[in-house]
């Protein structure tokens, strides 16, 4: 006796969080059933395998129907087809947009293109995530990226609005968009020790200090980009390095304040390198903080240095990033 058709529709859509997670993890129905079986559900509920199969199939079908709505969370909240209490809706969205940090770390700074999507099977193998889950998360990144690409305003807030994500998750997505936009080479070997969390925090600091939105809230530029003007201005700061005089003065000022030996690199691309020597010298985090503080403020005393504001804006971002990156 086989059931050709077997459905259950509730006036309030039934969501089983456990099954939802299994679905999100990319399991097939039969895999999910065996996982549920292993979880001891049969013993607890005293039901049969066929019931479990039918239940799992039913939930998966529901999730498939919900998926197209989940692609645009505001639609999920406005649709009439599935009556889901708001807290449940929020949980569904959060679950759908949740991602594995390891996967995000892999994709960080990469172009969210078809080519990258094709590489997902390797990523899947490295992270231990199922390909399906990888694809969903990749598509989520891409969807969020596309949605806010052309928008103006603070990234995290935009994402929060468009995808109804909780603030921390929205901030993470903002970081992903930021990296995808500015293509930081986060894949470099010497940066491998940094986790997604570290980089996301850096992205937030950089956005917080450097982007247009940080300076003037009604900024005209998209928030994900570091403004071109700012990058242009940074060249001016090179005087601190290129001008031997200034560099020495600066160095002596900092040294007098800290009595520490440092090397300074002002190039944005290379500023991370400051960490290596510090680590090799076993600096404490407190030391680093002190150093960066005085390093930032020292040029105030420098005569002939005209970019004080720009310098401090730049250094605020760098310092925060460095502090975050500086861990064992």
């Amino acid at each position, binding site marked *: 006796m086989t059931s050709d058709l077997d459905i*259950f529709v509730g006036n309030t859509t039934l969501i089983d969080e456990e099954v939802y997670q299994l679905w999100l993890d990319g399991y097939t129905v039969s895999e999910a059933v065996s996982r549920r079986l292993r979880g001891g559900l049969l013993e607890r509920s005293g039901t049969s395998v066929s019931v479990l199969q039918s239940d799992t199939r039913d939930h998966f079908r529901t999730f498939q129907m919900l998926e197209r709505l989940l692609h645009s969370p505001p639609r999920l909240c406005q649709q009439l087809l599935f*009556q889901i*209490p708001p*807290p449940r809706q929020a949980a569904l969205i959060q679950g759908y947009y949740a991602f594995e940090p390891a996967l995000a770390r892999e994709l960080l700074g990469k172009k969210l293109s078809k080519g990258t999507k094709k590489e997902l099977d390797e990523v899947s193998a490295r992270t231990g995530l199922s390909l399906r889950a990888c694809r969903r998360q990749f598509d989520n990144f891409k969807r969020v990226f596309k949605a806010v690409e052309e928008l103006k305003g603070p990234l995290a807030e935009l994402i929060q609005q468009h995808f109804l994500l909780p603030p921390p998750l929205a901030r993470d997505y903002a970081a992903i968009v930021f990296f995808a936009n500015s293509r930081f080479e986060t894949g470099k070997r010497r940066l491998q020790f940094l986790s997604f969390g570290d980089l996301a925090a850096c992205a937030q600091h950089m956005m917080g200090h450097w982007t247009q939105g940080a300076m003037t809230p009604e900024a005209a530029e998209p928030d994900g980009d570091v403004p071109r003007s700012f990058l242009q201005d940074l060249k001016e700061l090179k005087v601190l390095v290129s001008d031997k005089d200034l560099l020495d003065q600066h160095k002596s000022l900092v040294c007098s304040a800290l009595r520490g030996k440092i090397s300074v690199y002002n190039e944005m691309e290379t500023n991370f390198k400051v960490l290596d020597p510090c680590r090799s010298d076993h600096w404490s985090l407190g030391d680093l903080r002190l150093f960066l503080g005085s390093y930032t403020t020292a040029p105030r005393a420098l005569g002939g240095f005209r970019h004080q504001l720009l310098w401090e804006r730049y250094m605020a971002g760098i310092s925060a990033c460095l502090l975050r990156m500086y861990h064992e």
Partner: protein
Amino acid sequence: MPLDSQQPNSHCYWLTTYSELLCVCSHSHLHWIPFNEDPNPNTHSSGPSTPLKNQTYSFSPSKSYSRQSSSSDTDLSLTPKTGMGSGSAGKEGGPFKTLLRQQTQSALEQREFPFFTLTTFPPGFLVHVGGVVSARSVKLLDRIHNPDEPETRDAWWAEIRQEIKSHAKALGCHAVVGYSESTSICEEVCILSASGTAAVLNPRFLQDGTVEGCLEQRIEEASPPGCGFCHIPYDELNMPFPAHLTYCYNCRKQKVPDVLFTTIDLPVEAIVIGKGCLIQARLCRLKKKAQAEANATSISNLLPFMEYEVHTQLMNKLKLRGMNALFGLRIQITVGENMLMGLASATGVYLAALPTPGGIQIAGKTPNDGTYEQHISHMQKKINDTIAKNKELYEINPPELPEEIIGSPIPEPRQRSRLLRSQSESSDEVTELDLSHGKKDAFVLEIDDTDAMEDVHSLLTDAPPPSGFYSCNTEIMPGISNWTPEIQMFTAVRVSRLGNINLTNQTLNKNFNDLCENLLKSLYFKLRSMVPCCLCHVNFTVALPEDELVQIAVTAVAITFDKNQTLQANKAPTEKSQQRASTDNEEQLQFPLELCPDPLASQPSLPAKEVLEGATSQTGIPAAQRATSIDYSSFADRCNSWIELIKLKAQTIRRGSIKTTASLDKTSPLAEGYLRHRSVPSCTNSTVSVVKMTPLSFLPGAKITKYLGIINMFFIRETTSLREEGGVSGFLHAFIAEVFAMVRAHVAALGGNAVVSYIMKQCVFMENPNKNQAQCLINVSGDAVIFVRESELEMLPVQPSTVVSQPTSSGGDVTT
């Protein structure tokens, strides 16, 4: 009903009314007249009277009925007689009561059909309940002359209603309550079915009398409220069927049967011990594929056996649960190409007024075989264990009554009833069995063939619901009262192939049984997060869309209840009745009829008034239509004028002067509720209004403040890309979800926030996987209402309740 006896043609298509053969009085005993004993074989031998020839072959209606000998009144003229004191009723009770009954009876009989489709009534409305009456008839649809005209169909139904009426009369009842009609069609063959519960109604409710009249009569009221309806309405010395009567276990004054089957909901005043449970009987019978009359004949021949088996199963399962009454009984016979399916659902309870059911005894046919006996005794032990377990599960602990108090009023030569098996049983074996060691009213299951063995097994395989779950097919579960507002209505549909090679009745039965059991199990599993909860109004519908394909659709509502308060269960009936009877003003009427000014309606509430208004709220009849005194001489007139009035009102409604429009100021408070939150796009401030749906007539913990009108919607959906839409399951899942959504949207558009009395009347699904196509038709209906939570009523009398959006609510009350 436009049926007049000068239209003899209307009977030409009469093939067999099988209820002639089997009077299902369901008092535990079936009155059974086998084919060959029938005094008038002509009436159900459809063979010679082929409908085509029938145009010349006509017989008078009265002749066409072959009545069972036990029925005392077989006169069935189509224009009902109005003679006083006709029928077998009126022999019990005092003279006044007799008079009352005669008054009512004649009044009711003047109506063409004294049928009530309602299943719940105000306390005291049902004086006596006789038992289930039912009738079925097999017809050929292609023999209707004018398919577009209703005459033929009207005539068919008129015949069936007459039949029902005569059955009710035979039971000493003058009315039928909880009445329903249904059809099952396969190709050109159609089974018309009707069933209801024979009852004696309280005349007070059927007339224009009001409060004072009621109060006067209350003194005369003889039977106590908790058990009166169980007392037999028929004459115990001239019973329509052999029944086992005892004195009422509650009042000890009047006679009650040992088992009571009804199609109505449990009366609110009924005294119940323990909890109830859903009981189902399931049956399949193969039949040969045939055409037209041959087909109709074979169906007609099978029907009585099926109904008998279904009753047997019901009776056994009832005994197995230690219960003694069935409510909400619904027997569905579905006809397919090569099989017939029977599914009976009911809610079993233990009525305090009826005697404790005896156990079930198994008797072997070959008593000398040692291993066989061992097997039998093993089974017997299992059955006894199950009964004991069930009694514990359903908390059935009736007070022990000394035998002498109850006594046995009727001399009983054979102090047991024997469970008959239709095909396998021959009467001479009865005397050979020695059952003296058993309880005197024990049921005996005789195992004399594999069939019976299967039956016993299937009895024992019915798994009880998991702990924390209860289920019933009535509105509310007897024994549970403290419902929480959390409800979840659902529809589940399964289509299954019952096997395709070498089908036998046994495998068919087993498969069907498994299908139903699995479906129930999966419901329990799916809703496990709602425990402790009860599945109420569990409504199974069986269809046979194709050969060997069976489709089962279930709609029910799961309601969570508070386990900690179960001890207060005895408070339940009164609370419930008040809930039902709480009607204050015109606003409460289901339809805002234009009422005549009635000074009485605004009087401060008298208890009896509440009761009466309860009737009003259930029937939709304005309170103002009740006059102030009782006048027996004109009772019938009043009854008729009352009906006239309703008809008038109904016409008014049809003409459209009814104010069902939800004017803005009166729309649900939720409209404002969600407008306030519209600006913020966030999940927690959804702009979508929540609409609750329930098959019940009420919402637990809520007060219905306005009825907005009936919702009756038909949907047809077709796909030519079945695979792409996720196959049949994906297609139907999406469709039913959309049907729900459309009903909700419709209700929300009317300003309502709930649908009550929701029912899916039709769900016809057809597929053609080869063509990648499927079609489905769904018909649903219900009442759109505005409800307000009782808690909110108390807390915020002025502020509009924000039913829809409670931003930070814990989720408990925003569901559904």
